[in-house]
């Protein structure tokens, strides 16, 4: 067992590729390409950043003649803000758990046992993007109102549960795609078989093998779900729940500077989530393999 030819080192050392001598025309082409790219990138940045900068600047104008964070102070100290924001955060966490519990086993099962059903499942997960939310909300209300066979809207808890299911439906396209993309990077079938032959059951396979390997993908789906739930209006308004979405709409109709401050806060939360996705990727050493 000594004198092995396959140590790491030879694979790390590769011969320098032979590059043909550049012609006189090639360097000019290379310079024009990146320059144009930077111009378009700059235009894109201006297009996206300018409204945000304008909005941020406007949110600082609450105090006359000077910039201040009065609008932010006003929003953050509003008990209604705190109540609705907390409610939506809790609801989004419930939705994330619900969505994961629904999507991860389903996506795994489709990959392992029902690959032929994948287009059908993908189509079903896309339906919430095609069917207007108000249609789904009215459907829920008709199915689960107080005079139905399952009167979930009769109590606050029942309505909250209904809202969580509604949110999970809305988040389905994002959650499914995120997890399915994560699973696509793995040889799910062989890893499952490798775990099975070592004595593992489905629970171990799901939580010790699949979940850690698609954790970054799940986080992406989770943060997208978080953003969607935080800003969602139709479901919450029609089910009459004290969520952050209706509060933002109400503030927009009744205040001047606070809506801009709220929008900046919402953007910051979304960007914070995106930063966390990146950070999560770095926390798991095995994910470096794909870089």
């Amino acid at each position: 067992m000594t004198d092995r030819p396959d140590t790491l080192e030879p694979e790390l050392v590769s011969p320098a590729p032979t590059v043909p001598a550049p012609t006189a025309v090639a360097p000019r082409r290379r310079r024009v390409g990146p320059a144009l790219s930077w111009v378009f990138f700059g235009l894109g940045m201006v297009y996206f950043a300018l409204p945000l900068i304008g909005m941020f600047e406007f949110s600082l104008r609450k105090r006359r003649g000077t910039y201040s964070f009065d609008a932010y102070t006003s929003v953050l100290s509003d008990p209604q803000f705190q109540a609705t924001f907390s409610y939506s955060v809790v609801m989004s966490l419930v939705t994330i758990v619900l969505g994961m519990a629904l999507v991860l086993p389903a996506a795994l099962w489709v990959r392992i046992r029902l690959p032929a059903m994948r287009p059908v499942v993908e189509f079903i997960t896309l339906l919430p993007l095609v069917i207007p939310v108000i249609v789904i909300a009215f459907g829920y209300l008709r199915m689960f109102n107080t005079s139905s066979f399952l009167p979930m809207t009769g109590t606050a808890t029942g309505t909250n549960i209904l809202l969580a299911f509604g949110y999970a439906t809305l988040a389905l396209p994002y959650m499914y795609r995120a997890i399915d993309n994560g699973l696509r990077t793995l040889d799910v079938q062989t890893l499952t078989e490798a775990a099975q032959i070592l004595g593992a059951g489905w629970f171990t396979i799901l939580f010790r093998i699949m979940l850690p390997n698609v954790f970054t993908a799940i986080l992406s789906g989770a943060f997208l779900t978080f953003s969607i739930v935080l800003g969602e209006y139709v479901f919450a308004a029609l089910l009459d729940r004290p969520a952050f979405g209706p509060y933002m709409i109400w503030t927009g109709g009744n205040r001047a500077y606070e809506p801009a401050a709220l929008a900046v806060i919402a953007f910051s939360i979304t960007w914070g989530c995106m930063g966390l996705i990146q950070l999560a990727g770095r926390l798991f050493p095995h994910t470096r393999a794909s870089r």
Partner: protein
Amino acid sequence: MAYLAITHLEKSFGPTRVVKDFSLDVDKGEFISLLGPSGCGKTTVLRLVAGFETPSAGSIHIDGQDVTALHPNQRNIGMVFQSYALFPNLTVAQNVGFGLKVAGMARGEAAARVDEMLRLIGLPELGARYPFQLSGGQQQRVALARALAPRPRVLLLDEPLSALDAKIRVSLRQEIRQIQQQLGITTIFVTHDQEEALSMSDRVVVMNGGIAEQVGVPFDIYNRPATRFVAGFVGTHTAFDAQVTDAAAGEVTLGGTRVHLGQRLAAAQGEIIHLALRPEAAHLGRAEGRETVLSGQIAQVNFMGSIIRVTAMVGEAALTLDMFNRPDTPPPPVGSTVDISVAARDFIVLNAG
């Protein structure tokens, strides 16, 4: 009953019968190779033994226990996959210890077993690395250690060397065989590489179209192929059609030449039988002890380093023969007529298969 008994195994996918009435008895500690071309059913047999597929008919017994209906995680079988299948989120040590943890082994005992396995595969210092930090050969060794750690009753190897480059393949196959003999573990090895199968196995099962064409020790498989398929798949051969002139005396006519095969033939007089001849059995020119002399015209000369492979047309048959490369003996020119001498006992009489 054999340690691993596969009895009348059948497997169909829809209307396609992939495995047809496959039976095999494997003794404890034996190394068996399933050899055959793609689609011959060898991997399906392995997956049936592992429990990943359910047989359409037949049974599988391990150490007297009927495991046909058991799930893969209930069979206590180890398996090494072609693509390594190491868990990317676990370190080498965690991968090797996975089966032990699942089985509920105490932490200290499991750590000692992992250490023992890593020493066995010669990688005791790599326990903390992740799979992506290992070369292909190292990953496959870890996969082998992981499969062996829970002390399985049977080890299944599904083309474990196919994804590796040639040099590592040769060194690793020797290591696998050495470890298998050291542990005395019953092993089934699936491969389409005849050299691997012949060099590693106690016995080889040559498969074709879902059936076992021949089961035997490597020496017999190569030197006494039972069917035309086996002769063609294992090694190179020249096929001849010969007419039986005296079945009892083992005499046939081959391209106008009478040949005494030295064995009684199970064919009627006048019947056409199939003969095969290995390249190393034919000799360019006349030689003592090779009483049958055929006349042929050189059609092709391939220089292969230590040997030169010459193809000569003998009647309708393209006879292939190997000659050692000697700097003072250049190969005959293409188009020249030569004598080719053969010992009649080197002709292999084939069944129709």
